[in-house]
């Protein structure tokens, strides 16, 4: 069952003491979607959503490739040459790469790369070193779900319905400072944290 954002917002109407979706202000609706996306981002940051690419080709002489769309971090990468065997790559920081080989951008080798450096801001992965022949790559990575928008259907496990619901009550009520509601926001937040903690324990196993 996909999660319907329309249904989720409708479910939140009574919880926010409104009489109908139409009665929610545009600002509140915006807050709700901001909350949904922030909640999913937080879960993604804990490594709960994983994906992979296999047999991606890096042309001879290239060292940089784009990170998969919505990737948060790589947690496994391996490379091989045509007819060769997979060789896992080490995860290096940019500082380690520069210290190891100040001339890294020009270094090239006939062997497969040995390490990768992720530049999240640029959305790129740099392999070290460049290879004189084509390289095949496998990347396993954590990712963030697609941004949640109005009237969308999201293919996510059902339990996230409850997490998004509770986190939205927490966020909207806390933001609006409703009278006599801080306890309600805190209680919803506590339940949301319990669910998020359990899901992180279940889904971020490395």
């Amino acid at each position, binding site marked *: *069952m*996909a999660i319907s954002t329309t249904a989720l917002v409708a*479910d939140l109407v*009574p*919880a*926010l*003491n409104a009489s109908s979706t139409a009665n929610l202000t545009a600002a509140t609706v915006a807050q709700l979607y901001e909350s949904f996306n922030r909640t999913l981002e937080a879960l993604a940051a804990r*490594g*709960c*959503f*994983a*994906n*992979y690419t*296999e047999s991606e080709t890096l042309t001879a002489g290239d060292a940089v490739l784009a990170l998969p769309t919505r990737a948060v971090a790589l*947690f*496994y990468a*391996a490379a*091989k040459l045509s007819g060769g*065997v*997979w*060789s*896992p790559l080490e995860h290096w920081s940019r500082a380690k790469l520069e210290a190891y080989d100040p001339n890294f951008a020009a270094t090239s080798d006939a062997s497969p790369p040995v390490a990768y450096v992720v530049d999240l801001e640029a959305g790129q992965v740099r392999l070290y070193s460049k290879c004189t022949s084509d390289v095949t790559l*496998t990347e*396993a990575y*954590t990712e963030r779900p697609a941004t949640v928008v109005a009237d969308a259907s999201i*293919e996510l*496990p*059902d*339990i996230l*319905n*409850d997490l998004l*619901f*509770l986190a939205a*009550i927490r966020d909207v009520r806390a933001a609006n400072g*409703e009278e*006599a*509601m801080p*306890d*309600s926001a805190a*209680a*919803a937040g506590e*339940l949301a944290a*319990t*669910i998020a*903690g*359990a*899901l992180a*324990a*279940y*889904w*971020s*196993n*490395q």
Partner: protein
Amino acid sequence: MTLSEIRADAFRLLGEPATPAWWTAAEGTRAVNSAQRLFAALTFSIEQTTTVTLTGGSAWLLLPDLARFLVPLRVSIEGGARLMPTTFAALAASNARWQQSLGAPSLYANRGMLLAVTRQPASDTTLELLYAATPAALALDGDTPEIPVEDHGALAHGAAYLMALKAGGSVLKDAQSNLQRFYEAIQRRAAHVRARAVANAYDRMPYELKKV
């Protein structure tokens, strides 16, 4: 217990009549469903089995859309040997060529809905996946929850607390004891499931709830 019975109990716990003025039946149903999902997620009291196809020669498998999936409890070759759980870090540390070792699968690692398997069978292979699941949503008044029948009463406590969230103030404070009762039932069931999981040598245990 049926959905309507649990919902009526939840309203009663909030001091409301069977047809309350402050909450709707739809709110009650949503709260009961949410309570049951939360209960199942924290106890692994619902198990589902499905089969997935591992493509021949591939080490990777992204599980198809399993809306009710929580975590794998046991993975095995259909009608055959069981795969033992490990981690990606352990796979890479123990055998650099783990994703290119032909043979019968014996290990798996998972993260979210992603599974990695070693060794890799040469041809397509069906894996049997036993997983902890969340329940199907209750919709009709006569629907009964999937969690064990002894725990159906706890859903009224969980639902009452969830419904009290919108009221806040003294209503929420009064409902605090319902949350306590709900958590106690979760802990009892989770302890039972953990004992059973040890006996069955399942791969994962329910989340340890520190509350209470």
